[in-house]
């Protein structure tokens, strides 16, 4: 018998089932189809300005910084301000996201390059798929628009989030993923990011900037 059949028949023997019982099959199909929500914490169940405020507070609690802008072009000036403020080189690496493609960088000294990171980019710019207010979490999806390597290799990660893409809880984010990719399907990678990288492995002391970005800056584009 193959390992697969061996393991499955061991499980069935232990459970005292044969794998063809109708009630078990329908229980599983039903759960996969309905994807019932469990306990929903009240914290995330807010909307509008309250939701933005919650997201900000939670993201800042985990050492991310947050700015809000009104116009798409303000993203450029905010990114430039951020790099200047932290004495960072005027470079940005970004993907091909259409929502960032029209930004005009010519008024700044920033040298923008495009594509995934090979490990030598100091600053990365990405556009979030969405975000979760309950925990101050960004959701990034893979693809040419926002290569996954940009989420991890640059020292400083700047992420643009549209207010309309901010949801209260993870469950609402799953709904948005299903709407975009189809029920039962997911992009190659979804990175849920809650603050900059950190480690507590040496004497349980939390230090920022382990293997991922040392800094995470979120620019919210208001509706």
């Amino acid at each position, binding site marked *: 018998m*193959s*390992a697969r059949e061996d*393991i*499955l028949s*061991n*499980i*069935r023997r*232990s*459970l*005292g089932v044969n*794998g063809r019982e109708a009630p*078990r*099959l329908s*229980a*599983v199909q039903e759960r*996969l189809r309905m*994807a019932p929500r*469990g*306990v929903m*914490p*009240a*914290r995330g169940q807010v909307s509008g300005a309250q939701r933005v405020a919650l997201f900000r507070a939670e993201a800042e609690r*985990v050492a991310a910084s947050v700015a809000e802008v009104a116009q798409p072009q303000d993203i450029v000036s905010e990114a430039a301000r951020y790099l200047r403020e932290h004495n960072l080189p005027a470079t940005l690496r970004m993907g091909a996201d259409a929502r960032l493609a029209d930004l005009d960088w010519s008024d700044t000294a920033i040298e923008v390059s495009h*594509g995934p990171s*090979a490990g030598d980019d100091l600053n990365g710019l990405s556009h979030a798929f969405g975000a979760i207010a*309950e925990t*101050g979490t960004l959701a990034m999806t*893979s*693809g*040419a628009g926002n290569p*996954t*390597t940009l*989420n991890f290799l640059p020292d400083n990660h700047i992420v643009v989030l549209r207010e309309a893409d901010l949801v209260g809880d*993870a*469950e609402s984010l*799953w709904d948005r*993923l299903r709407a975009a990719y189809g029920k*039962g*399907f*997911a*992009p*190659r*990678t979804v*990175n*849920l*990011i*809650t603050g900059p*990288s*950190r*480690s*507590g*492995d*040496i*004497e*349980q002391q939390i*230090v920022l*900037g*382990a*293997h*991922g970005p040392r800094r995470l800056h979120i620019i919210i584009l208001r509706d």
Partner: protein
Amino acid sequence: MTIHATSPAFKQNAHNALADKQLQQALGNVRAGFIDKRTQAAERLPEFEVLRDSARDIKNHVLAHLDLYLEHYESKVREAGGHVHFARTAEEACATIVEICKAQGARTVTKGKSMVSEEIGLNAAIEAAGMEAIETDLGEYIIQLRGEAPSHIIAPAVHLTKEQVEQDFRRIHTHLDPERDLTQAESLLTEARMVLRKRFLEADVGVTGANFLVAETGTSIIVTNEGNGDLTQTLPRVHIVVASIEKIVPTLEDAAQILRVLGRSATGQDMSVYTTLSTGPRRPEDVDGPQAYHVVLVDNGRSAMLGTEFEEMLRCIRCGACMNHCPVYHAVGGHAYGWVYPGPMGAVLSPSLLGVDKAGHLPNASTFCGRCESVCPVRIPLPKLMRHWREREYERHLAPAVYRYGLSFWAFFARRPWLYKFATGLAMPTLSFLGRKKGRFARLPLASGWTDHRDMPAPQGKTFQAQWRERGGKTR
């Protein structure tokens, strides 16, 4: 089993641990670091206790339907272009992974933190096949440099002080300036980041574990803080996920429920920094990510635990809260347990996976204080399961002779209430009189195993039965 288990020598291990000053200093960080953070995180979420019930119920539902969810999960991974391999034993799992690496002509394999890879002894198997395995989680990297096993399931190097880490870095990173400052956690972390960045970029295969396998989408999920797991799985040509079969959850909603108790129970974080969902290999529209995606599903004794009194142990989500709150773990650390899973969860799981003859005595290292059960996010009745193992060990005559004689001696009195009353009525006032000055004994004849490391409290003068009667308790 490629990792040599020293669980049979728990008593000696514990003895050595208690005498190890550096270890005792480092273990102070467990007591100080984890407990308050968890309490605060739980208090900040009013729904925390009902979420624990929810997490428990999801896990029970999965275990009752594990065969069906595994089949669905497998078909979804294949649909997304990934490969699924089943492994009955540690040896089969290692052979499968080594074979995938060899087929790629791999020279170096980076690894994200994975307890099941420790369980199956994967690093040794990769090295034996002539390839290099590189641990990339900071704690795992440190213990790999030292040739040690993890001493904690989420903080593998918690048994070390930063001075010890500094010595290891100086010993291994000899290409760096010997005058550099490595006295702070920051400088040690920066050095590890720099050294490992190069290794990430040149690796051929990346191996990660999984906190969840989502049947609905064929997705594996890792939960980390450093970002090493993501670099491990994004940069090389091949991503291999190694996970045990009970990691399945039905849907993303179920994963979200358990995520709410996982981070809080483990490190006191509402969410860990990186929760990454991976489904299949790189898509046509992707510009990065692995070209091949494999999942190795490991049984290694778990299917046999289903339907037994130890089934509940399969709910474990490896948060580490039980050991963080365990007075025995605080005293002896993780290595004393002799294998990869320490603390209360290890005391229950290790006998199931290693055999009661090798690890059946680990459940004796418990005060049955119940703190582990009181913090377990999936409400595993760990003390009850430890008692089951004690019974089995006793039934199989594996318990040491002194222990058995002691029990018979006690049973002799317990069956004769008048004799019991007489003997304890005599002993209590005597001990109470002898210990009247300090209220405790620093030394007792025949009990140095106890008094070497802690004091024995002196009785307060009356027996339990006498006090029970005084307070109006009923006696038979």
